[in-house]
Each structure stands twice: as structure tokens, then as C-alpha cells.
């Protein structure tokens, strides 16, 4: 089966989301669709899945035109979609979720759950998905939940499976397992469209790569014929610095000292277990680790959002262990939080308001009771210009910005003041290459200005490229303190997995 999009154009008020886009996918191959946030990938997939109707152009199956007026039509034609955010009922079992909407029924319309289990087992075995039909969704890790979504799609007999940013929520080992699943699918004669902005992953798994920029297909290539730099340049439209450009650090006094820090969850689990380290003025210390090894809790304890069960945090010689987030802010700590939409921004408020969200109490923006909105607007305009935040009007809601520009709002707000220590959690998660480059450059600039920088990231490449020193966190403990210039990715990966390289290199 061959699926084609020919000359698809989709306009929204004020923008052309897709401009004469043509692409094709056959069963038995993997097509990677790469582009920055806002390049039109999602719109294109919504056209393919029958959610949007194109203004121009047509869809073809095996050379014959076809029209979708709803996702049901697309499903009937053999298209399946695995969304970035899973559509599963957490309290139901795998089998119940999979058959939801297409339930096998016995006599009198009663649910035939035994048949549902059998169907799940059959598909799961065929594609080596290793699913237990009776497991309850909320007990399953994210990677397994994704496999449930895949079974859902396969049971509806999809020939072409579309994955929208499938690896964004997965741990590195889950990503490897995911690639295995994709290979099995293709081996069994299905076609896969893989939407991503991660270049490495596209190069690893795809047979063909289509690059989208500003609604247009700007390049078609194959992994064998290209490299990361080339694709990044196609995506962004200019040469991109994938390696962080920085001089070696000149560490000064200790600015952030963490001693025996322990964080205990309400259910009694110790998630940060006696962690100690120091960050000096003018250096970037990276914390590597697989998601869920206590990094989130460590950052929240340092930022004051979580109470430490033991140990201390010292900022420029002052014990701030018991201080509130506000007191830490005033003392000179910046915090770029892990989840920009849930924590870092109030997306329904304006860009101006978000640019002063943590700073509105400064005399610059308010006099105790009254807000100085004129001052805030002026400063916001300066920040928008200085940090290259792409917006036509800073009084618009922050939700109108792309992910990368939202992150720049946070970076601008946190770094554009006099700070001693900056704590950045997942500073580039889910943002495009151009923005990643920009955020990294800003962090290096602050380091060179004498800020002590702590960077926590689950992207090993990011930690290695950015840091002057790398700490590895595993099960709540710091298990290694490494020099990124001398240690290999492989060795850090071993520490992350809880083992130890045979010949320790630092």
C-alpha cells in the first residue's frame, strides 16, 4: 500500500501552516518527518488523520484519490495515530483500554473480556510487545503505556502508523526498546511515520527523512546520505552550532554548597539520599541520570519548593536550607524549572506578566502594593529584544508562543538579573534546535559572567556538551564526579545504569 499527500496547503487565519506539501509513505518503510516546533508537522498529520480538511491538494491511496472527513475515515483507510499524550483510561486494564470503542461482545451485548484478552495477547505476541492484558494502566511505566497505544492502533488494522514525538516521554533504554518495536512493525509490513525534532533518532531509525520548515518541505534525504549538521541546517535555515562553544572554565569561590541533602517522600521513600556537592563561581556542573532517579526532587529541594528531610544548602556562604523560594530568589538564585508549562509559566497570562512572574516584587516592578506595569512593559520589551523572543506583541498570552520561545521567556526572566547561582532543570526539553543553541549560549555566557550554574538533564549529550564537571545521579545518590573532557559517553551511561566501568577514567 502506498499513501501520498499531494500539494497539501492548509491555511489558518494569518498563517499558512502547510504550503504545497507533498510526501509519500509505503508499507514496509520508516519515514521521519523532522521540523522545528511550529514548522507544520502536527497540522500535516491532522490532515492525514482526517481532523483537518486541506484547503488545497489531495490524499491518494495506491494512486487513487481519497477524502477523509473524520478520523474514522482515516482509520478505515488504514491510518493509525499514536499521539504524544496518551489517550488511555488510567484505572482500566490494558485489555479494557485496547478494546475501548471496538469492544468484542457476547450474547446480549455483554463485554467479552476473555476475547479482549486473547486479542491483546495475539497482537502483543506477534509484534513482541510483551504486554500483560490484565495490568492496570496507572501501574505501568510510560514506555509500556506507549505499547498499549500501539496495540490499540494495530488492532484497528492500521497499515500506516504515525508516531507523534514518541520518544519525548521515554527514558534512554525505553527509546531503544521503542526502536526495536518500530523495526518489528516494519518487518511485518507496516509503514511508520515518525515525527520528531531529534536528529539522532531520525538518523537511527528512518529509511527516508523529510524536513519541514515554515510549512514547506525543504529537504528529502536518507540517513546514509546526510549527517546531523546538514539536517539541522535544513530545519533552521542556517548553519547551527550543535557543539556548545565555550572556553574552559575558570572556577572561583564556592557559591552553591549542598551537604548530605536528603529528601523523603510522604510515603516514606528516600528519593534524594545524602547528596553532597559544590558548584563554584564560573563553572557549569551537570547532573546526568535516567529520569526518576531523584533529580527532580533534588532541584526542588535546592529551589525551596520541597522540604529537605536532612542536610543543608548554602548559597554564597549563607545557609538557606529553611528559606522560602522567595528568600532564595532575593538571595540571588535563579531557577529554570523542569516543566515550563506547569511550573515556569502561567500560559494564560501575557508575555509581559510572565517575564515578571518571579520578579514582580522587585522595586523595579512594584512598590509593595502597586504594580508598576509601565516599568514591567518597558523591561519586557528589552528582554524580548535581548533574548530573541519571537512575538509580535508581548501583551499576548504566553500560550501563543512556540515551546522554544516560551523557554526563552523563562531564561530571560531568570538570567537577566544579578544572580549568583542558577539551577536549570531540563533547560532544553522539547524545544527546537535553534532555541537549544540559543539557550546553551546564554548559559555559557552567564557562567563566564561568574555565575555558578547547576544543570540537570536527562539528555546525556546536553550534559556532556555543556558541563565543566559531570555528576551522575542514580537512585537518589551521586555515584560519580567526572570530567566530560576525559570520560566517554559509554562510561557515563554505565554509571547512569547503576554499574561501574571496569577502568575508571577519572
Amino acid at each position, binding site marked *: 500500500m502506498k499513501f501520498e499527500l499531494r500539494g497539501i496547503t492548509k491555511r489558518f487565519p494569518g498563517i499558512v501552516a502547510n504550503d504545497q506539501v507533498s510526501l509519500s509513505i509505503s508499507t514496509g518503510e520508516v519515514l521521519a518527518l523532522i521540523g522545528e516546533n511550529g514548522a507544520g508537522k502536527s497540522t500535516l498529520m491532522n490532515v492525514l488523520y482526517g481532523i483537518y480538511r486541506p484547503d488545497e491538494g489531495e490524499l491518494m491511496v495506491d494512486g487513487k484519490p481519497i477524502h477523509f472527513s473524520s478520523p474514522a475515515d482515516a482509520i478505515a483507510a488504514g491510518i493509525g495515530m499514536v499521539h504524544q499524550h496518551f489517550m488511555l483510561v488510567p484505572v482500566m486494564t490494558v485489555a479494557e483500554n485496547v478494546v475501548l470503542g471496538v469492544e468484542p461482545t457476547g450474547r446480549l451485548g455483554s463485554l467479552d473480556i476473555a476475547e479482549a484478552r486473547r486479542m491483546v495477547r495475539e497482537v502483543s505476541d506477534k509484534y513482541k510487545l510483551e504486554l500483560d492484558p490484565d495490568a492496570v494502566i496507572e501501574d505501568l511505566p510510560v514506555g509500556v503505556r506507549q505499547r498499549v497505544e500501539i496495540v490499540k492502533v494495530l488492532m484497528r488494522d492500521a497499515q500506516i502508523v504515525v508516531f507523534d514525538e514518541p520518544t519525548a516521554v521515554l527514558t534512554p533504554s525505553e527509546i531503544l526498546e521503542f526502536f526495536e518495536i518500530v523495526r518489528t512493525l516494519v518487518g511485518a509490513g507496516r509503514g511508520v511515520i515518525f515525527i520528531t525534532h531529534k536528529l539522532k533518532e531520525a538518523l537511527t531509525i528512518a529509511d527516508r527523512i523529510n524536513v519541514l520548515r515554515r510549512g514547506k518541505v525543504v529537504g528529502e534525504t536518507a540517513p546514509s546520505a546526510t549527517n546531523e549538521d546538514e539536517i539541522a541546517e535544513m530545519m533552521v535555515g542556517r548553519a547551527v552550532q550543535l557543539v556548545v562553544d565555550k572556553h574552559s572554565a575558570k572556577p572561583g569561590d564556592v557559591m552553591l554548597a549542598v551537604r548530605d541533602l536528603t529528601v523523603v517522600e510522604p510515603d516514606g521513600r528516600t528519593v534524594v539520599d545524602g547528596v553532597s556537592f559544590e558548584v563554584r563561581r564560573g563553572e557549569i556542573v551537570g547532573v546526568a541520570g535516567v529520569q526518576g532517579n531523584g533529580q527532580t526532587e533534588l532541584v526542588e529541594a535546592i*529551589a525551596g*519548593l520541597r522540604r529537605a528531610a536532612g542536610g543543608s544548602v548554602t548559597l554564597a556562604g549563607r545557609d538557606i536550607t529553611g528559606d*522560602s*523560594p*522567595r528568600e532564595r*530568589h532575593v538571595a540571588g538564585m535563579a*531557577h529554570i*524549572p523542569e516543566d515550563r508549562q*506547569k*511550573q*515556569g*509559566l*502561567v*500560559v*494564560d*497570562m501575557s508575555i509581559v*506578566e510572565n517575564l515578571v*512572574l*518571579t520578579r*514582580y*516584587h522587585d522595586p523595579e516592578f*512594584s512598590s*509593595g*502594593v*502597586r*504594580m508598576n*506595569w509601565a516599568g514591567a512593559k518597558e523591561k519586557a520589551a528589552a528582554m524580548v529584544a535581548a533574548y530573541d523572543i519571537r512575538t509580535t506583541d508581548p501583551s499576548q498570552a504566553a500560550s501563543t508562543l512556540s515551546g522554544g520561545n516560551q523557554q526563552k521567556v523563562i531564561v530571560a526572566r531568570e538570567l537577566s538579573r544579578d544572580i549568583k547561582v542558577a539551577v536549570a532543570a531540563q533547560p532544553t526539553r522539547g524545544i527546537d534546535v535553534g532555541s537549544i543553541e540559543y539557550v546553551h549560549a546564554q548559559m555559557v555566557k552567564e557562567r563566564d559572567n561568574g555565575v555558578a550554574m547547576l544543570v540537570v538533564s536527562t539528555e546525556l549529550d546536553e550534559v556532556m556538551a555543556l558541563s565543566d564537571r559531570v555528576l551522575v545521579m542514580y537512585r537518589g545518590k551521586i555515584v560519580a564526579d567526572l570530567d566530560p573532557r576525559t570520560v566517554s559517553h559509554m562510561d557515563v551511561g554505565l554509571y547512569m545504569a547503576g554499574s561501574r566501568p571496569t577502568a575508571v577514567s577519572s
Partner: protein
Amino acid sequence: MSETLKSLRFTLLAVVAALVVSAFIIVITDIEALGNGDFGTALSTLRTAYWGLFKGAFGSLRAISNTITGATPLLLAGLAVSSAFKAGLFNIGATGQMLAGAMTGLWVGFAFQLPPLIHVPLALIASAIGGALFGAIPGALKARTGAHEVITTIMLNGIASFTVLWLLKTEAFKREGRDDAISKFVEESARLPRLFGFMGKRIDLLAHSGFIVALLATAVFWWLLRKTTLGFEMQATGFNQEAAKYAGMRTKSLMVVSMAIAGSFAGLAGGSEVLGLYGYASATVAGDIGFDAIAVALLGRSTPIGTLVAAILFGALQAGGRQMQVDTDVPIDLIIVLRALIVMFIAAPLLVKAMFRIKGEAKSFGQTFRGWGG
């Protein structure tokens, strides 16, 4: 078209749609005429009814006075719901807060003898404080224990009603020579001056300066939202509590403060009824105003101006409804139906879209109610 204009259009269309559906109800329920197959009479009933509705609301000075009288407590109580909404809290407790404010205002009103220039403001302040303290309770309960304010405010409404019923029978409050639950009169010096007092002896013009208080409260609400750090913190918390916490805002104290502010508006509503309209308190002094206020806040999309316009509209419907009942046989209960229809159309923008064949997205609409489950 800007977002504000778009939402304004939907609000207006919701009102129009409600009037259209109510028209059908008037015609269909005109059984006598319909039974005789006499559509002409049914239609003229409709015309008389809607004309009466308008006349009773704006047709004369007395009508305007009645509209203002009805709008005053609705506006103040509406602000109590709107301001809580802005902070992400769903305040169902305006009734209880009104009763609290009514009683504290009442007490200051009869227990002291002061010159009006001091007595009136003092009694109003007492009302605001009474409402604020009562409103702070659900805020504190949520901050301390996580108890949802929808539940606690409903419970506190019950507590307030029965406490008032009991208080009104105590020696301190009860009126000499009466056995039912009715209070003493407040001192003349504590009465809110009548708005049309300059017209001499027109005792039918009930509108009182509680309306001025309500307008000032609306201005305070606007100022709070737009100009103050507290308003900024309230709104940030209302939209995204996690982010507010991250930004160093004390979200728990904000819950208490926001509910106290909401309660003070409702308290003023109770106080202005006692000091302005009645001159005394009875067990039914709050009536259904606390609940109608939720509809007012919804219709006004929780903004200061919107709440003002919605309160005046509801006040007008109430005043006009009485005239409509006099002019035709259409019962005033139709006004309840009409208001319910307005709320329904507001909550169902897709229905309005379909009725008026509007193209495009309506999804940004109908999200006034945040904070559910929050």
C-alpha cells in the same frame, strides 16, 4: 476580531437566544388562546409581555429605581463570586457571607447612636468585615486541609442561615413585641441615604446609595486586578497554582486572603440590603441572591465591567418581570426560566454557534469556571 469582542458577541447572542426561546414558552403556555387556535392573541400576549418587561425595567424613574434596587446586591454578591473565580476558587458561599455581613452591619446599625457621617461608613465596614471573616473560613479550610471550597461554602451557607435564625430570636437582636425571626430596626443615622431622596416624598423610589457602594466596590475590584501585586498574585494562582508556588507566591495565604476579599464583597451585599433597603434583618434577607450571583459572575466572565453589566441586566429582568406579570398573565417565574436559559447558552457556546451560524472556533469561550477539582 479581538478575543474580548468575540466573547462579548457570544454573551450578547446568548441573551438574545434566551429571549427567543422564552418567547416560544410564553406563546406555547398561553393555553387559553392556543386552545381556541388563536395565534394572534398569543402573539399579542408575547408583545405585551416583552414590552412590560422593558417598561418595568427602564420605562420610568420608578422602573429604573427598581432595576437599581435589584442590581445592587446582585452586583456586590456577583463580585464575591467573580473575585474568587479570578483566584481559582469557586465561591458558592455568597449567601452565607451575605448573612454574616448583614448581621454585623445590623448590629452596628442599632447598637450605636452616632452621626450619620460616621454611622453609615462604620456599619458598612462592619458588614464587610463580617463577610470577610466568614469568607476566610473556607479559604483557611482549603489551605490547611485541602477541603474543596465548593463543599465547605455550601455547608457554611447552612450554618449561616440557621445561626441567623437563632440570633434573630435572641434578646439582643429580636424586635420588641414580635415572636417571629425579625430584628430590631437600625437607627435612622445608619440608614443608607436614598438615591432619589432629592425628589422629595416619592416613597416608591426604593433605590438607595448601596448602589454607589457597589459601583465603588467594582472599581476596587478592577484596581485590585489591574494595578496591585496582590491582584497579580491572585490571578497567577488562579490560572496555575504550581507556577505561582514556583514564583515564590504564598499560595495558601492567598487562598485565605482571596476568600476574605470575596466575603467582604458579599458582606457588603448583605449590609446594603439591611441598611439600605429593609432597615432590619429577617431570616430571608439574603434570599437567592447568593446563587443568582454565580450566574451574574458567569455572564460577566468574572471581569469587573462584565459583572456590573450582568448585575444590571439581572436587576432589570427582576424589575421588569413584576411589570410583565401585572400587564399579562405571564408569571414572574418566567424570569427564572429566562435567566436559566441565559446561563445555559453561555455554558453551551456550540449551541449558540449553531443557532446563529457562526463559523470558526468557540473553544476559548466557556472556560470562566476554572478551579473545579483544583
